[in-house]
């Protein structure tokens, strides 16, 4: 099996591009834009392993790399195909001498939008990686039935993210759904073993009395003319149906006889009954259970939500910052430092003005995500409106990180700054009170520092972070 790394966004034709090794590919976060695998018979294991090592790589450029699969004759199994963005046969490839994948283009464009992507970027959270995979390809994750794991279904596209073949993918998707990053849609309902959750169950009809599995199923016959009702076998004589009561031949079903129902006869205790007791035996753990105890679960297909799309770009918890960024024009830390420097110089020069630096720290911000999900965006927008109303256009706002904000309030006394911050605090706390349940509190701590020539921004920022630690 060969692997080809594609470095240009231009076309790819197999013989024209250079062969690569998986190690080379994994080491190169800059030049390789996509990879093409040439699948040959009997290399399923190796292929899977390579895809795994790409998807499990921490760097977004590697693990989000568009992957294409080219095969000769034997088509790889569907579950494997679905791990790739493209899957074409060699013959197809020959017909279209230059195959340019719009999808590959799309992915590289999406990667360009990711902020702060450099050689040292690394994503460790698997749910986040899944989110990014979905966002970069605008992908809907559909489950596929499989005998390969005990749950009986997989999401093939995200399988390579996991080292082991277990429930992890389902748990990760469930987590993403709870956070409202992905929406889900009913796909299938399935029965699982109450003991080990395996989907591989044997449904057995058993005798209602002795529990034996060896049942014989027989049809009942009702002869209209004489009203006789008996098992089909009692009517059978020399390949004809003869009524044992009146010795008449039964010719046409529906005209002179019918089959009103079916009965089971237990071959062990000879009991006859119509509704056998349904039992379930698990192929995996061999435990037996009554049909009522079987777990019934829904299996879903997942699709990215608007919040998820945002989170994929800015990180699972950067939503707030991104909203403030667009609404309030946050300045970067570097810019903020420059402003402070200028302000300090101005105050020192004219000795007329008083300005302040305020720090705001939100405790527990990530819990809002978990609690509000989809509504988080709305709440954050409202908070940013509060920010807007409290601060003036002449104020400079910057985010130290997701939870800590620093604001340079020009021409504001410490007293007035505190007043403003208290207003902000009350307004935001009211918002939280209206949106969050009581047990979930989002604390807001604020501090105000007057600026003079001796002010040290680094110290202030340190203090702001200290508040956080307290």
């Amino acid at each position, binding site marked *: 099996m060969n692997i080809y790394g594609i470095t240009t966004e231009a076309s790819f034709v197999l013989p024209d591009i250079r062969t690569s090794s998986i190690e080379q590919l994994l080491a190169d976060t800059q030049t390789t834009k996509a990879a093409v695998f040439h699948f040959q018979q009997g290399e399923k294991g190796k292929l899977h392993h390579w895809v795994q090592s790409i998807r499990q790589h921490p760097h977004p450029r590697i693990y989000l790399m568009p992957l294409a699969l080219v095969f000769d004759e034997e088509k790889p199994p569907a579950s494997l195909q679905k791990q790739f963005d493209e899957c074409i046969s060699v013959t197809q490839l020959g017909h279209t001498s230059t195959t340019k994948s719009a999808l590959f283009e799309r992915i590289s464009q999406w990667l360009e939008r990711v902020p702060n992507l450099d050689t040292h970027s690394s994503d460790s959270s698997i749910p986040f990686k899944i989110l990014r995979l979905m966002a970069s390809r605008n992908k809907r994750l559909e489950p596929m039935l499989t005998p390969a794991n005990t749950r009986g279904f997989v999401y093939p596209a995200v399988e390579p993210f996991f080292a082991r073949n277990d429930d992890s993918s389902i748990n990760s998707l469930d987590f993403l759904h709870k956070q409202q990053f992905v929406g889900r849609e009913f796909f299938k309902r399935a029965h699982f073993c109450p003991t080990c959750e395996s989907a591989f169950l044997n449904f057995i009809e058993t005798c209602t009395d002795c529990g034996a599995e060896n049942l014989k199923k027989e049809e009942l016959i009702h002869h209209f003319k004489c*009203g006789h009702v008996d*098992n089909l076998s009692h009517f059978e004589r020399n390949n004809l149906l003869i009524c*044992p009561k009146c010795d008449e031949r039964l010719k046409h079903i529906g005209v002179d006889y019918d089959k009103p129902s079916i009965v089971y006869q237990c071959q062990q205790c000879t009991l006859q009954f119509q509704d056998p007791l349904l039992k379930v035996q698990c192929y995996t753990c061999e435990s037996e259970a009554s049909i009522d105890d079987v777990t019934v679960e829904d299996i879903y297909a997942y699709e990215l939500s608007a919040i998820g799309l945002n989170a994929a770009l800015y990180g699972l918890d950067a939503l707030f910052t991104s909203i403030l960024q667009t609404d309030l024009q946050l300045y970067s830390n570097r810019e903020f430092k420059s402003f402070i420097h200028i302000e300090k110089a101005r105050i020192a020069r004219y000795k007329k003005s008083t300005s302040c630096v305020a720090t705001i720290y939100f405790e527990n911000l990530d819990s809002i995500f978990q609690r509000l999900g989809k509504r988080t965006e709305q709440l954050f927008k409202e908070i940013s409106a509060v920010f807007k109303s409290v601060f003036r256009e002449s104020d400079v706002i910057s985010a130290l990180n997701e939870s800590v904000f620093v604001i340079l309030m020009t021409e504001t006394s410490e007293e007035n700054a505190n007043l403003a911050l208290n207003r902000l605090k009350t307004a935001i706390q009211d918002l939280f009170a209206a949106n969050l349940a009581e047990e979930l509190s989002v604390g807001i701590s604020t501090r105000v520092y007057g600026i003079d020539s001796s002010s040290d921004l680094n110290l202030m920022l340190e203090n702001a972070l200290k508040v956080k630690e307290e």
Partner: protein
Amino acid sequence: MSLTGLFAFVQNLTLAQVLAYFWPFFLLDMLRYVIIESLLIFKFLFNRKRRERERAYARHQLFAERPIVSIIVPGKNEGKHIPALANSLSNQTYNNFELIIVDDGSDDNTAMICRQLLKQGKIDRFFRNEVRGGKASGANTALRFSQGKYIIHIDADSHLAEDAIEQILLPFYLDERVGAVGGDVRVANEDDSFATRLQTIEYIKTISAGRVAASELGILRIISGAHGAFRKDVLAQVYGWDVGPGLDGDITLKIRKLGYRVVHAVHAVCYTNVPLKFANLRRQRYRWDRSLVRFRLRKHLNMLAPAANFRSSSFFSIIENIVFNVFFDFKWIIYVIYMLYTAPHYLGYVFIINYFLYFIANIIQFVVARALISPSYRAIDGLTPFFLPLMPFYTGLYLRAVRTYAYLMEFLHKTSYDDPWNPWKVSRIAKKEKL
């Protein structure tokens, strides 16, 4: 016409005139229903007293053997009655029985109710025929799966007195020639309406008293579908029930043809709900009465022929049935024509006197019947006897009119084959085969 005129008319009657004017009452109804029936009931009561020891021994044998009894309840859309029926069976004095419910193609929630009861263990077996096959096929399905030595057939909308199973089984142990035992059917909803009061009196007279008398004579010809017990081996010989309507009378005759005795157990009591309205009652009787013509006069007329299985009691059973029910039913037409011809001026007097005669006859019959059933009688409010004055109208006019109409329709048009009581597919075959 006046009261004095009436007295004068009565005083001037000679014996010949009495017979001439009131022959239907004195020669037929009084003789048959009052004198002979009362005598037979006294004979029954006397014998019962005499055979008390035998009865005690039979009971001992029954409980020593404790055979399995299959209680079979076929029906369509009867689910709502089943829980009450199952409960009424839970406190039987004889309790070695299995309760088999057959759902004959119900289109309501019967199957759901029954499966629930099956799970709770309130019923023992449940079979559902997806397609309706009629009462006979339902009963035969139940018979097919029954395991009992005796089969008790009851209707879903009835319930049994506490000792009913014990009482209905005793005759099998008193006389081994008995192949089937009829249980007594009494009215459960006695105080529900005017119609049910009259039916209560009618049931006591015709079922409780009438069948004891017939049983004493050895000519009992019907075992109610609502309550009857059969020996399983006997049912197997006749291959169960044939297509109805009137299949209960039919199977009784088939059992008689085999030479078994059929008796009535008056103290094996089953309470059944009778129609509340006269319109429903009329429809019910119309169906019952037609079946008499169909089975007695068509299907089983061969019992009158001196064949190998000829039995005089069966012969008389049928003759009595035909004569008293069919032939004598038409006597009142003859009687009215005859009276119009012989005594047109006295029609009013004759009518009033007839009414009194029948009223008194009803009182005597009721008193005798009431005495007969007193050990197993369940009083509701004691008001029913006050409806006795209406009985001559009820039996003499209302029921007679319905019956005459039914006989005529069946004779002329064989309307019973069009009865929706059986599924169409079955009726079609029955008509074609002249069953």
